[in-house]
């Protein structure tokens, strides 16, 4: 259907042309047939007419001969004239005459005066001469030829031809009109389906609607045409739909990609900001620590100064450790490797743990801290450490974004079976459009803030993820910038009593004492830990390199060995393998202490024979926890 691509008007004229052609065909066929028939009829009629005319004239001549015979026989020209005068009733007879037997004219008649007559009678018969017929007829009476009749008549052939032709013409015109009418009716059987096809084609092109179909059921070739056209439309429609679908898919994909690209750009920018902030945040505590070290070196004898310096350094270190811990946790959550240890936890313990961490920081900023907790115990289902982390993050944040001398409050209430904790401050507040985004990773409230106030945008993100892991929710409220902010945490409360799953770490403190080997080249760290363990009643041996540690292990046969991987002279892995090779080595619980928390480091440690893997900096609680699991490990070993 190449014509379908041309304009609609040409389709219409084409249909009209087909119609006209069909009618023209019928009419011209009729004309040819009618002409042939008319010509044959005309020829036949004229021959018949001529015979009739001459026969009639001969008959007239006979009558005249018969009637005038007595007049001629008795030489009565007067009577003969009277007889001839009767011909007046036949106006087409122009002239008549009687000739005697000797050929002379005996009597004559003329319809109009001034007619010519032949001089002498001629042989009987008729002659057509121009528009006239001339007849000579013998007059025979009683067997004798007594004269001749002469008749001259108008020959009506042309008149006849004209009148007959006119009738034929009229009949032909009528027939043509009827033929045209009939043809215009009959052509509809062909043109109507064609018209329907062209109309549908035009509609389809104009409306781009391929569900249109040519209506009606036709038979024969036109039916096949209509059916094929409909099938073609269906096919085009299917393809067009498929194409559109593919286009939509492509568009959607493009959109998704663009969004992803946009998100990547944003993420990239945030990461850059994060890196800058991270560098700053990591470097920030280093300056006071360095200062503390300088004080210690210069004024090691001054106990008061030493104490102050170590306090500063410890605070800064804790802050730094916090930061790195948060980062690691977030990274673990994001990679799906983070799991919380669930258990029955009491609210007050959680709050105490959190306060222990943040109280120095809050006091450092000179804030007033207000705590308001329910009187009766509230039990939660979750990880005590992580719950404390949530609170400490929120409190830390509140302290950080509140100008010096502000107020930080923690209020916990019970609503039905939900614990609602609100951490509020009188700080810089949050703009309304930022309320939802503050929980996103690396998002900072205001990048124009001073560096000292800038955070990494990690703490809130981690808090929200931890809350969600506990089946709770967190939301931020603020009356606006400069009006302080509120963070509301909702956590489900456990009502049913729970069987104690494990003994609390506190139960172990005086329950059992162990022989413990510590090996680390960080003398400060290892000495402080050693002092703590000794204070708890354990026997502790401290070494600072690999060979010393191995020698101590041989002699001391420790229950626990905390080994730094990065020891001088001998790597922690080699040391572990050597200890395991000792006779008493299989009884020792070995813990790798490294600066690397990657999965492959963990794997390497376990391959070398370690039972546990701890990432620096090591908190004392972690050590206590490991000491508490002694029984389980022994069981596994044997």
């Amino acid at each position, binding site marked *: 259907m190449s014509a379908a691509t041309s304009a609609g008007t040409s389709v219409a004229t084409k249909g009209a042309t087909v119609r006209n052609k069909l009618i023209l065909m019928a009419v011209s066929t009729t004309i040819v047939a009618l002409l042939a028939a008319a010509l044959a009829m005309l020829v036949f009629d004229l021959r018949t007419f001529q015979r009739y005319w001459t026969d009639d004239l001969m008959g007239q001549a006979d009558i005249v001969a018969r009637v005038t015979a*007595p007049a001629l026989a*008795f030489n009565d020209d007067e009577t003969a004239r009277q007889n001839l005068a009767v011909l007046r009733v036949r106006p087409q007879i122009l002239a008549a005459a009687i000739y005697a037997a*000797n050929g*002379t004219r005996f009597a004559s008649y003329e319809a109009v005066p001034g007619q010519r007559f032949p001089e002498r009678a001629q042989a009987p018969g008729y002659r057509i001469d121009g528009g006239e017929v001339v007849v000579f007829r013998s007059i025979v009476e009683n*067997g004798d*030829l007594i004269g001749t009749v002469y008749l001259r008549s108008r020959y009506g052939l042309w008149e006849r031809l004209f009148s007959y032709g006119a009738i034929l013409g009229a009949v032909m015109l009528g027939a043509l009109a009827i033929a045209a009418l009939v043809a215009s009716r009959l052509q509809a059987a062909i043109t109507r389906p064609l018209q329907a096809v062209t109309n549908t084609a035009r509609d389809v092109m104009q409306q781009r609607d391929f569900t249109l179909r040519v209506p009606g059921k036709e038979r024969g070739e036109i039916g096949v045409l209509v059916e094929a056209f409909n099938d073609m439309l269906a096919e085009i429609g299917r393809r067009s739909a498929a194409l559109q679908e593919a286009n939509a898919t492509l568009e959607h994909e493009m959109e998704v990609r663009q969004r992803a690209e946009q998100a990547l750009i944003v993420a990239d920018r945030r990461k850059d900001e994060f890196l800058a902030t991270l560098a700053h945040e990591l470097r920030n505590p280093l300056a006071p620590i360095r200062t503390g070290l300088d004080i210690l070196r210069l004024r090691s004898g001054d106990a008061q100064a030493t104490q102050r310096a170590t306090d500063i350094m410890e605070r800064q270190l804790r802050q730094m450790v916090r930061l790195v811990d948060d980062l690691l946790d977030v990274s673990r959550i994001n990679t799906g490797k983070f799991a919380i240890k669930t258990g029955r936890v009491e609210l007050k313990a959680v709050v105490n743990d959190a306060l222990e961490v943040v109280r120095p920081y809050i006091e450092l900023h000179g804030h007033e801290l207000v705590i308001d907790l329910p009187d009766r115990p509230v039990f939660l289902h979750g990880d005590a450490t992580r719950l404390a982390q949530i609170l400490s993050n929120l409190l830390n944040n509140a302290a950080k974004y509140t100008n010096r001398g502000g107020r930080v409050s923690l209020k916990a209430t019970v609503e039905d079976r939900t614990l609602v904790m609100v951490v509020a401050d009188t700080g810089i507040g949050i703009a309304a459009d930022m309320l939802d985004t503050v929980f996103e990773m690396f998002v900072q409230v205001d990048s124009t803030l001073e560096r000292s106030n800038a955070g990494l945008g990690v703490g809130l993100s981690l808090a929200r993820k931890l809350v969600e892991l506990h089946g709770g929710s967190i939301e931020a409220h603020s009356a606006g910038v400069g009006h302080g902010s509120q963070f509301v945490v909702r956590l489900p409360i456990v009502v049913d009593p729970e069987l104690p799953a494990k003994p609390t770490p506190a139960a172990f403190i005086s329950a059992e004492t162990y022989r413990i080997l510590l090996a680390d080249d960080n003398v400060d760290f290892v000495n402080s830990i050693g002092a703590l363990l000794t204070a708890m009643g354990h026997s502790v041996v401290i070494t600072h390199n690999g060979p010393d540690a191995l020698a101590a292990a041989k002699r001391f046969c420790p229950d626990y060995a905390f080994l730094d991987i990065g020891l001088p002279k001998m790597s922690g892995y080699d040391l572990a393998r050597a200890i395991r090779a000792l006779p008493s080595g299989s009884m020792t619980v070995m813990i790798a202490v490294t600066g690397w928390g990657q999965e492959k480091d963990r794997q390497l440690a376990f391959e070398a024979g370690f039972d546990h893997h701890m990432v620096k900096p090591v908190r004392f609680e972690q050590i206590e926890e490991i000491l508490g699991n002694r029984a389980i490990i022994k069981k596994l070993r044997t």
Partner: protein
Amino acid sequence: MAGWALACASALGVLAAALPPAQAQNPAASSALERRVKAAFLYKFLGYAEFPPGAFFDGASPVLIGVAGSDDLAAELARVVAGRTINNRPVIVRALRDADVHAPLHLLFIGGADPARVGRLVRQATSSMLVVTECENGLQQGSVINFRIIDERVRFDVSLDAAERNGIKLSSRLLTVANRVQKGGQQ
């Protein structure tokens, strides 16, 4: 038949050629022409007359014409009818004396202009006969056809009553050329 017709045509040609001059002749010099015309008429009358059934003995019986009181006309008529037939019957012409008029005839011509004589002869003649006369008031004497001369032409009157009386039917075509036709009480 065709040969016969040709023969007739040639024979008549002589008579026909003689007719027009008759119109132009003066009475004194045209006596012979008049005799000839009347002879021809007599013969032609037979063609327009129908005789009663018993008039002929059989189909081949001749048509008998008697001419009384005019021998030259008889001779002329004899010449006219020579070789001719009427309805396939030969024609025989007899010149009669007045005493012989009662003889059986089909056509009797009584010449002469004396009405008394003509009337006597008409009454003597047998019935069923076409009687032709040429005198004044011939029809009143009982003749069927009476010649007259009008405008120097030979014309004739017809009495249908006489014809009917004699059992003779005259063709209407003959009547069309008659000068006068008497019928009923017009006598």
